[in-house]
């Protein structure tokens, strides 16, 4: 079965700092990749997704992620974080042809003003 690893459980940044959250998955076949975000007190919502094509995908609120197949990675980036980006971020993988998503353990991001 596939697994998803998120490198950091907690990240603390100051506003305007750059962000990169690591995500690696274990499945060797074709996958779809997702980043979900959960703001305090809110439900999980999709930030961005990769299905095929350009490995650099752009999502909402200035986030982007790059799929590097050779490294089994799908790292999330943002050039300049804002206080409102404080949230928990989850990477998820789906094996092509299956509906179920497997999630990482999440990274809690705290942005100080």
């Amino acid at each position, binding site marked *: 079965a596939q697994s*998803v690893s998120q490198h950091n*459980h907690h990240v603390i940044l100051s506003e305007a700092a750059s962000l990169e959250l690591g995500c690696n998955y274990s499945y060797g076949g074709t996958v779809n990749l997702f980043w979900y975000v959960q703001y305090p007190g809110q*439900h999980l919502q999709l930030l961005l*997704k990769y299905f095929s094509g350009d490995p650099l995908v752009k999502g909402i609120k200035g986030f982007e992620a790059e799929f590097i197949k050779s490294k089994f990675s799908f790292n999330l980036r943002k050039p300049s974080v804002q206080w409102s980006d404080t949230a928990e971020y989850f990477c998820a993988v789906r094996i092509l042809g299956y*509906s*179920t998503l497997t*999630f990482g*353990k*999440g990274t809690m991001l705290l942005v100080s003003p």
Partner: protein
Amino acid sequence: EAGVVQSPRYKIIEKKQPVAFWCNPISGHNTLYWYLQNLGQGPELLIRYENEEAVDDSQLPKDRFSAERLKGVDSTLKIQPAELGDSAVYLCASSYPGTGELFFGEGSRLTVL
């Protein structure tokens, strides 16, 4: 468009008591998921429905957990009897078949005393 609706949002019970959670997915979403989220962890799949059929329930502890989706729309997840270790957030999500893009409800937080 209304999102995924779950109830109750919070439930506190004593161990050995039964509890039930209800979920109404987004209209037209044939696939429904129940996920379990423990503190500091990512969501873990309990069961997936395609219409009214449970197609992936391998992670559902069937000795005490049960679920149903009788008319292929809303769903109920039941625990009987609850144990201390069941304290967690129970998430419901829905999607169009095969898309992999899940839409989550706000979750039902269970505390077992």
